[in-house]
């Protein structure tokens, strides 16, 4: 029967392995690894010191001394996995040494429980009455009971940790804890918990050690400091810390040679970094750290590479304290800082510190009403990194707003505590964002760990996120076995969006094997939402495929013409943009060579209209050397129109290159139309006209009046004043446009203006335009007005416009209005409109109209053809 380690055993083994790895790193000269050791074990080391000394300040001094001793004697540690016990022993010795120095050379065994009962310095809650109460109470306990108690609270209330540290059994720890508590007064217990838990060492402690060992200096500076100290042989306390092992080691010539060899090797990497590691603007002298042990809070102020920020950070702690209790005050103090950068930076650091010191209360604080959402999110993320299980549990119990935090961090939760994801997802509401893929992404990660479990868990989820969860797991699965994933998706019960699951499978596959996914892309409906950019199945698959292998994707598209529509191909736009911006000619040339140029045109055009807009001129130049065909001509038009929208100056420059041919004239008119149809086109009419080449002027004026007819906000009076820009032959159209826009704004005023026009065709057209605009917003009002008009051309034109507008809604009414028109041309046009609308609705009525209506032979046969297409 094999031994299966339980959780505590395995976590202990893991910790020992981690310790061993850190020890190896330190032995390789990695000072940052030592800082990590400090971070991991400072609570224990300070706890032992506190347990022996019973004095918060003195215990930190002793703890610092312990770590510095450990640093000096690191080579003496024979079993890296026993690091914790070794540090505990050093801590004990250091604390006892402190005690000895304070009380003279008494026998350690004779040391009474507590030595110093004088008032405490102003740190670590020292001014707090509770701290004083705890200190005095602890003083009454023998060390046998005091040490386990202190360690218990400092080590996260872990009996096992205390047992390991003191090298006694867990039962023994429990007994001593119970006995110790009994010996204290009942009322002190809760205070003890609070004070000892929150008075643990903070990051400032860690950083102080880090600075003292030079771990935060640049390599060049470390080297400089070490050798400057050695050369000077100055026997300062600081120097003795770093040089005494060296000097000791030099006692024999063999050792001297070995030491010299080690130094040569050690200095190679230092020299390697020497040229660049020191920022040029920083004088070398500034970056030389002073290595010295810290013996008192006053002397502990680190220069930290002359870091102003660290000094301010430390100052905040000096003023407000370093315990969890001090966190709200520091938070408030940071809020009052004037410099936004510091405010942001210190908030960030404080949130992290708080998550280390007292995550439960910290989370409560950040979940209070009105707290900063970003800080709340970061707080959870920090805690999640430190203790995923506790953080997730606390979040789920945090109250209103937890879902948002969970959703934001879901991917991280999936990475750190995948087992919790299904439970969280079950409780999350449906996302308000169409683009939110958090649940899907998280489940893809969960599936990476255990696909079967992820699929089962996803299916068991209740609530609106079930399909997304299944999709996430399937997305991962499909990367290795697309067909199996699709087959499984097809077997899912009703109520699951099977098509969306299959889409996820295809998207997953596209990310590793584009061609395999593309082959099956149209096995599901388009999905997505109308009006959303590149939201179809094809677009989503193409987006992933292009990211994974653009060339293979383009080649596949080239060899499968017509398999994707324009909307699908927009999925390629993002990757296309990157490539166009990197090398436009190379990109286009490649598309011609692999035959994908025509097929990829929608993506290229989208890129040109957006983030590859600066490539328009390059594309234009390249196009000039290409043979004329559908694709190149369409792209030319696109370059012109997109330039007209985004960069009118370029559009006008390019217009000079348009040939003086009928086709060229048509292109110029199209360009003018694009200029006017662009954002704010009518607003920039004057400036465009002023800057346009002669050939473009008239087309711009005509395009402006054409555009005016569809604008609902243009100023009619302004455009009346511009009518003279039009040639005589174009004025009637111009007036019609003005009437149309005015009719949408104020039909009564528009009619008032039209009535001032001379009787004739222009006035008739203008009246028709007003009727058309008005009918769109007020059918009854318009009908009433027309009914009161005198018979004649004006009334006929108004009725024709009206009938055309209402034909979509009510072909029958439109038909009646059409038949009321005297003018045969108008009657035919209106009747045709009504009949065309009636054909898809009621073919037999439409047929009757077509047979008896006022149509020309040509129109009648066209309508009959339309009818024939719709009838069996």
């Amino acid at each position, binding site marked *: 029967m094999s031994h299966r380690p339980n959780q505590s055993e395995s976590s202990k083994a893991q910790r020992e392995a981690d310790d061993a790895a850190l020890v190896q790193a330190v032995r390789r000269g990695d000072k940052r690894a030592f800082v990590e050791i400090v971070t991991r074990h400072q609570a224990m080391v300070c706890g032992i010191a506190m347990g022996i000394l019973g004095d918060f300040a003195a215990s930190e001094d002793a703890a610092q001394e312990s770590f510095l001793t450990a640093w000096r004697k690191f080579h003496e540690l024979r079993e890296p996995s026993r690091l914790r016990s070794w540090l505990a022993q050093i801590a004990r010795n250091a604390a006892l040494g402190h005690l000895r120095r304070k009380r003279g050379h008494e026998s350690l065994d004779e040391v009474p429980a507590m030595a110093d009962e004088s008032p405490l310095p102003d740190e670590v809650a020292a001014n707090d009455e509770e701290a004083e109460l705890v200190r005095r109470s602890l003083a009454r306990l023998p060390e046998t009971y005091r040490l386990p108690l202190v360690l218990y609270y400092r080590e996260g209330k872990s009996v096992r940790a205390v047992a390991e540290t003191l090298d006694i059994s867990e039962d023994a720890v429990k007994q001593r804890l119970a006995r110790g508590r009994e010996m204290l007064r009942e009322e002190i217990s809760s205070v003890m918990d609070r004070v000892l838990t929150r008075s643990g060492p903070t990051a400032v402690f860690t950083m102080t050690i880090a600075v003292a060992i030079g771990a935060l200096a640049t390599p060049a500076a470390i080297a400089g400091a070490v050798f400057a100290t050695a050369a000077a042989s100055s026997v300062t306390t600081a120097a003795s810390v770093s040089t005494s092992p060296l000097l000791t080691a030099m006692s024999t010539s063999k050792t001297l040679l070995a030491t010299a060899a080690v130094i040569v090797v050690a200095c190679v990497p230092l020299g390697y970094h020497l040229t660049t590691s020191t920022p*040029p603007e*920083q004088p070398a002298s500034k970056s030389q750290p002073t290595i010295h042990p810290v013996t008192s809070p006053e002397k502990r102020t680190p220069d930290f590479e002359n870091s102003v920020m660290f000094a301010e950070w430390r100052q905040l702690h000096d003023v407000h304290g370093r315990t969890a209790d001090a966190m709200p005050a520091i938070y408030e103090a940071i809020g009052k800082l004037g410099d936004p950068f510091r405010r942001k930076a210190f908030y960030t650091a404080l949130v992290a510190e708080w998550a280390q010191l007292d995550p439960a209360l910290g989370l409560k604080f950040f979940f209070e009403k009105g707290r900063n959402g970003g800080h709340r999110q970061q707080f959870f993320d920090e805690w999640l990194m430190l203790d995923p299980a506790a953080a997730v549990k606390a979040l789920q119990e945090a109250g209103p707003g937890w879902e948002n935090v969970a959703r934001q961090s879901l991917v991280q939760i999936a990475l750190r505590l995948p087992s919790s994801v299904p439970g969280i997802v079950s409780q999350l509401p449906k996302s308000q964002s169409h683009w939110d893929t958090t649940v899907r992404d998280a489940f893809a990660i969960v599936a990476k760990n255990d696909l079967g479990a992820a699929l089962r868990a996803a299916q068991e989820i209740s609530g609106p996120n079930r399909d997304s969860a299944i999709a996430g797991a399937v997305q991962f699965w499909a990367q290795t076995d697309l067909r199996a994933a699709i087959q499984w998706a097809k077997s899912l019960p009703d109520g699951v969006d099977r098509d969306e699951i299959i889409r996820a499978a295809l998207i997953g596959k596209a990310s590793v094997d584009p061609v395999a996914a593309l082959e099956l892309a149209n096995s599901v*409906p388009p999905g997505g939402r109308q009006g959303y950019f590149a939201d179809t199945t094809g677009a989503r698959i193409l987006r992933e495929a292009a990211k994974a292998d653009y060339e293979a994707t383009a080649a596949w598209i080239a060899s499968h013409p017509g398999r994707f529509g324009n909307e699908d191909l927009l999925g390629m736009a993002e990757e296309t943009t990157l490539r166009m911006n990197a090398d436009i000619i190379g990109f286009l040339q490649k598309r011609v060579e692999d035959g994908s140029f025509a097929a990829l045109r929608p993506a290229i055009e989208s890129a040109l209209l957006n983030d590859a807009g600066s490539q328009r001129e390059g594309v234009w130049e390249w196009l000039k050397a290409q043979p004329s065909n559908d694709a190149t001509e369409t792209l030319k038009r696109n370059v012109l129109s997109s330039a007209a929208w985004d960069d009118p100056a370029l559009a006008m420059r390019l217009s000079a290159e348009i040939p003086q041919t009928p086709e060229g004239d048509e292109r110029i008119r199209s360009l003018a139309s694009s200029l006017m149809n662009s954002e704010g086109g009518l607003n920039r009419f004057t400036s465009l006209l002023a800057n346009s080449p002669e050939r473009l002027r008239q087309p711009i004026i005509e395009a402006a009046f054409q555009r005016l007819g569809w604008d609902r906000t243009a100023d009619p009076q302004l455009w009346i004043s511009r009518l003279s820009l039009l040639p005589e032959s174009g004025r009637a159209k111009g007036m019609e446009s003005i009437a149309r826009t005015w009719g949408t704004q104020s039909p009564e005023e528009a009619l008032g203006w039209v009535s001032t026009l001379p009787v004739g065709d222009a006035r008739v057209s203008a009246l028709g335009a007003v009727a058309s605009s008005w009918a769109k917003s007020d059918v009854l009002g318009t009908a009433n007005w027309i009914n009161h008009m005198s018979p004649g051309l004006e009334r006929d034109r108004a009725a024709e416009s009206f009938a055309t507008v209402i034909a979509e809604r009510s072909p029958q009414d439109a038909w009646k209005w059409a038949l009321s028109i005297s003018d045969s041309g108008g009657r035919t046009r209106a009747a045709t409109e009504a009949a065309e609308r009636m054909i898809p609705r009621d073919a037999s009525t439409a047929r009757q109209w077509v047979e008896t209506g006022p149509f020309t032979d040509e129109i009648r046969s066209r309508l009959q053809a339309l009818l024939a297409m719709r009838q069996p």
Partner: protein
Amino acid sequence: MKVLFKILVLTLAAGVGLAVGFALRRNQSFPNTEAEAGNATVESAEGLKHEPKSRGKSAPLDDSPLATQLERDLSMSQGVTRWLLWFDAIERATLADFPRLIRIAKNTPAAMRLLTDRWIEIGPQHLFDTLVAVAKGGTQLSPDVVGSLTKSLLDQWTKLDPKAILAALEAAGDFGPREDWCRDVAVKIVEVNPEMGLRLMAEWHVSNYIPRMTGIAKWAAENPGHAAEFALAHPSGIVTERAMETIGGEWAKTDPKRALEFAASQHGRYASTLANAVLKEWSVRDLKAASDWLAAADSRTRNNLGAALVESWAKQDAAGALDWVDSNLSGSSLLRAVTGLMKGAAEKDVRAAAQLVSSLSPSTARSQAAMTVAEKWFPEFSENKPVEPAALTWLASLDNDSMRVVLDEVTWSWAGADVQSLAHFLSSRTSDQVSDHSFNTTARELARKNPLAAMEWANTLPADRATSAGEAAFWEWWHSQPEAAITWLGSLASTDSRRKPLFSTAIRNVSFDPNAVQRLAALPASEKPAAMEVIRGMQIPEERRTRLLAALQVP
């Protein structure tokens, strides 16, 4: 003496070690010295292009030892230590370090924010140049990181030094997103320097992006007359609209009558906007004075400004405002006023406004009012939430015209947010209540998700709409799954009246597709003769018809 000797030996050893390391560094650095001599901006951009994954045997040059060190330190740290390491790195970072540091920070939003702020603080031009280089040369850095850096830079640098960023934009020449950057900068400048911002927006023709109006409000409060004149002299679409609304609101606080006089002396939509804004704010502050003023005004002014008055009035007393509208306005002015009134009422209490609509007699005004309430009550386009049951009940209770107008207004967003409930609602409506637009949009949206269900749904609609909706759904289906769609069509009974119209519509639609030739060629041979018949009956240029028919020729 012995000690001195030993120290000398050790110092020499150290020196040798340092020299070897230095030499190695120099050797590796050699190619970089050329790069360093080049443009710092390009170098930074190159830095952004390198991904850490390419390290190893052919590792790229260490362009930022500080970042390398930080990356290593962070990998061994946790909690606050990480942030103190970040502080240390950020304080010591030179501009050249930032591209690498940003890469390290890209998955840590808080670090990204700190770095970005610092980069902007110490070298906004460097960040600008780096981003321009990225835009010009492409990058493997994720677009969201580039987007986030750009947004922060344009936002913060514009606030700090608008002239500098304008100069940078001018000097940068053409690059991909230049227009977007100019627009964002102009929008931001309006907030800090309204005159400069409005002038830029007019010059750059930025007319569809609305800045925050706080800066304009402050500026207008100081001298509303000047602000109004300036804004009118630099028109720029909706920006000027919003500016005039803000200026009007401010002017009304001090001298509404003067403001209205000024507006009356101008012409055009912006002057009208100004007048409306003045009256709206005035009626909020002093309803009686505002309504007295309007009652005494000429009929044209009354018609034009009635909507503004009642919008505010409706928030206090919707029924009273409605009475006033009924007795004072007519025609399109009445419709506009009802719209304004309902807007105000719906903002205060959408359910009460809906009740008010229900109490009106069927009319165009009621339809307009219903539409205004629906705009507030139904989900917006990007909202992913269902329609409230109370809203559905209210909509079902409206007269035919009002229901049709409301549906025309909300179908698009409703279909996106919750197409099933829309389809369910429409399936029990008559042709008089729903336009083709609503039926067809719903059919298309359904077809995107489940084409078969969409076809079935269309077939249950009133006979005069079933074909049209079916065609819309079928085309959507064929667009993405032509084979499946054709197969389904073939499976219909020969007597099914849908066969011919669906096929005809699909062929007509595909004929306008850029890939029409390929798509038609891919049709099953059995369907090609019918397709040719459709194309022969279409009104298209002969040259195109010939090409399409050629694609349908069976070899």
